[in-house]
């Protein structure tokens, strides 16, 4: 039951949000050019990191906006929240 600081609404219960998995996996611009292997990599293969992961969240029961967070998946501590399109924090 962690709290997520929605960049648009402020701090809310995690249950208001929907998780969207690993962030920064860009949908290929030219899917037809990809091999089956490359397409599978985009479609299914995930880092599934134990540690600090950049991930997508959606404030589904709030503003409906998507944004990114950096969260330590080993203890659910959230490091930062940043908007879509922004680069992930270096640290």
């Amino acid at each position, binding site marked *: *039951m*962690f*709290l997520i600081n929605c960049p648009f609404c402020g701090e809310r219960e995690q249950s208001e949000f*929907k998780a*969207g998995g690993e962030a920064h996996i*860009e*949908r*290929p611009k*030219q*899917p*037809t050019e*990809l091999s*089956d292997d490359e*397409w599978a990599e985009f*479609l299914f293969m995930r880092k599934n990191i134990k540690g600090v992961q950049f991930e*997508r969240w*959606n404030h*589904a029961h709030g503003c*409906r*906006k*998507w944004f990114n967070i950096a969260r330590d998946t080993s*203890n*659910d501590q959230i490091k930062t929240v940043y908007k*879509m*399109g922004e680069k992930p924090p270096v640290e």
Partner: protein
Amino acid sequence: MSKNLRFKSSKLVDETYRVSFKFNDKTYYGYKGDTLASALLANDVHLVGRSFKYHRPRGIMTAGSEEPNAIIQLHDNTSRTEPNVRATEIEIYEGLVASSQNCWPSVNFDIGGINNILSPILPAGFYYKTFMWPKSFWEKYEYFIRKSAGLGKSPKEADPDIYEHKYIHCDVLIIGAGLSGIMAAKMSAKNGLKTLLVDEKSFLGGSTIYDNSEFSKINNQITSSWLEKEINEISKLENLEIKTRTSVAAFHGYNFLLARENLTDHLPINQRENKIRHRLLKIRAKKVISATGAIERPLIFDNNDRPGILLSSAIKKYIDLYGIACGENNILFTNNDTAYETAMSLVQRGIKINAIIDNREEIESKLSYELEKNNIRIFKGYTVVDTYGYKRINGLSIMQLSKDGQKVIGKKIKLSCDSLGVSGGWTPAVHLFTQSGGKLKFREDDQVFIPNKYPSDQLSIGSCNGDLSLEDITTNTVLSVKKFLNINKTDYKTFEIITGINKSKRNIWLLPSDKILGKTKSFVDYQNDATAKDIKLALREGFRSIEHVKRYTTTGMGTDQGKLGNMHALGIISETAGTKIGEHGTTTFRPPYTPLTFGTIVGRNVGEFFDIIRRTPIHDWHVANNAKFENVGQWKRAWYYPKENENMHQAVQRESKAARDYAGILDASTLGKIDIQGTDASEFLNRVYTNAWSKLAIGKCRYGLMLNEDGMVYDDGVTTRLDENHYIMTTTTGGAANVLGKLEDYLQTEWPELDVYLSSVTDHYATISVCGPHSKKIVSKVIPDLDFSDEKFPHMSFKNTKIGQIKCRVMRISFTGEQSYEINIQSNYGKSVWEKCMEEGKDFNITPYGTETMHLLRAEKGFIIVGQDTDATMTPIDLQMDWIVSKKKYDFIGKRSLYRSDTIKDDRKQLVGLLTENPKEVLEEGAQIVADITKSPIEMLGHVTSSYYSPNLNKSIALGVVKGGKKMLGQKLIIPMENKNINVTVAHPVFLDEEGERLNAKL
């Protein structure tokens, strides 16, 4: 007549208010303020229950929520019955009925007691080693094992009580209103912080509130008096909310805690009507202070489980707080000074103490001198080696401990007693701290685990932090709370403390005996009957981790979750294995701290509140017209409308026929509706649907199929171009929310460059679909101003219009294959427009139909239902809907996946029509389809997805998916049922009006 062991009134017990209650069918009396345990003890009842495995007689051992033994069934055979209630927690009320558990025929004579005799062949883990022969017999053995296991009995009726949830947000939550908790609450609230103080007991002050000893003083006042003044002061503070009978059950991350506030369990049953029984507090605290105290440890020696053996602190509490003696001839057995405080309390009331047995050889405290002055025998350097008495302790024997404490020496001395108080020192109650993710450290001095690293903004104070003396508690509480709350000033200056005890302790986890260990029963977990020798056996067999030992011996797995014995288990493991405590793990304490009633967790979310019910604006009409309903997601949809004695089949046949021959009307309001606007709306639709949208003219409608990125059909529906940059999309009923979520996802994260805005408008419109050859006549009457001619208003187009003054949209789209109009109007007018359609349609036999008829009608036309005819493994190609997959578009969601090596195979499962050899025979939906039943194993080619008897075709029709079905037209296949095989022929999935002439039916 049983004895009365109540010696003196006390602050807590109201002797003017007598309460009668029943225990094992016998009536007893107690007073308001008593717990069931104190009231039973006052009546000299110690034997309360039987243990889990050996069915040994057990009594009251503690005076709190850590009680392992005295657990009873409340109100057996009533709707308010409750198993496994701790007698030490439940407050008595007039009419309380309690009975012993896990015994038959009675607690006094329990057949299961035979297990105690068989115990030599029932060591830890015995069931893993036997009951394996003969092979088929396990379930027979298991029947008896299950019968003898379990404790109380589950209720058999629904719960008459109500529960609720409450959210609380506070600056500081303080858990536990003992000495340190009260001090912390005062500091916090006086500094302007919104503070919540909770305690599981019905009174404040913890164990200090009944500490009336002359030997224990704060600032020259008896500690209980000092604390009483503090309590009086804080009860007036505005910032402070105090909740008693409130037990914190769980401490989750981010300072989210669950607490149960008990509101009626102490009231007579007839006063509970319409009251909330428990309130689950969902607390989000900025800061949490745990002041949860400590739990006294028992000592581990042979037969340490007899009724009459209690923790020494429990004996003190019963005498000081309830005015009850636990026996008339007491012995105390200790390894530290705690028992001497108990002894002083007994001495002050003139209750006999036969002896004090102390593991320590040297004892130096004011209390021990004082007791010796009172001629109390103290056996120094001794240990108890055995106890006597079956249903109540009547004596014990002691021997001297060797220097190293590993052996007993000398002669055995027998002593008589009817009550034995034991003290093995204290274990800080760190359960909530570890639940929150806190890490512990082990303090060698007194062998305790104390908080080390806090995972959130929290603090532990008082004895749960390892501050076990009055001096440490007072001084450290002030210091650490000041720092934690950033407080400069408090009312507390310095403390002048007088205490009768010193901290010395001689810790021996497993006390030696003159018998070999294998002959002893030294209980570590009282409830589950796990003994020291069981733990040693587990270690001998290679189980080393504490978690292994726990699971193998069931230590700590009872309803008390090992609050008394877990430390001893760890101690015995480390002693036996020669390792440091903690090296084999500390057990993890899992929520809840004390068991939490399911009803409390669920709160009001029962019955009709289990899940939201979504009803259409026309719902009441359906109800009034005898509709049966189907749950579709959270929606209630009219399923069919039976007349008089019709069954579903008859109703559906009638409705289907009417819709094709005359007119039908369907409430389609539940379909998802998404309003799409923006200059890139067309491009957006191009990307999300498989077909092309740019060229769709304003005012036209188009069917679209949406895929997942893995190429499988996800949703479908008709989308209408309302304007240049404005569309309205319809989705399936169940898929609406997911579709919107998915579209938002792509829009915001993959295609932020698109100028598109999405809004869900499902609930904003009622949708009424009128179909059938007379549909045009009916809607023309409902909307006389609109030109319904086929030229002006052809199939797959829409019109903005008005019904009276009310704007509405009319789409000419069809899911039945009939000429069909769909009126979309602001929800609150839905019902009156529906009624208007019914009125105007009366002459044309307009017939309301439900989802079942809708399914039948569309199946006649071979239209799919996503989720019924597809199952997330179907591509549009599999559905024989190649026509809807644009070859020209560069990309759309899922396109690339359609060209993977498996998805391009031409023998995938494909949608086909199926006709039975016997036209009257209707296939079962879900039935499997095969070609050859002689092969073994039988190869399944697919299954029947939709199947109906078509009254319009006078035959049975079905849709199904079949491997390579596209090429099987006309081929014979078999549907193998349990009792017969049904022959079918593969057919084209469009059974009716393949040319689509009915869409423009002219009558």
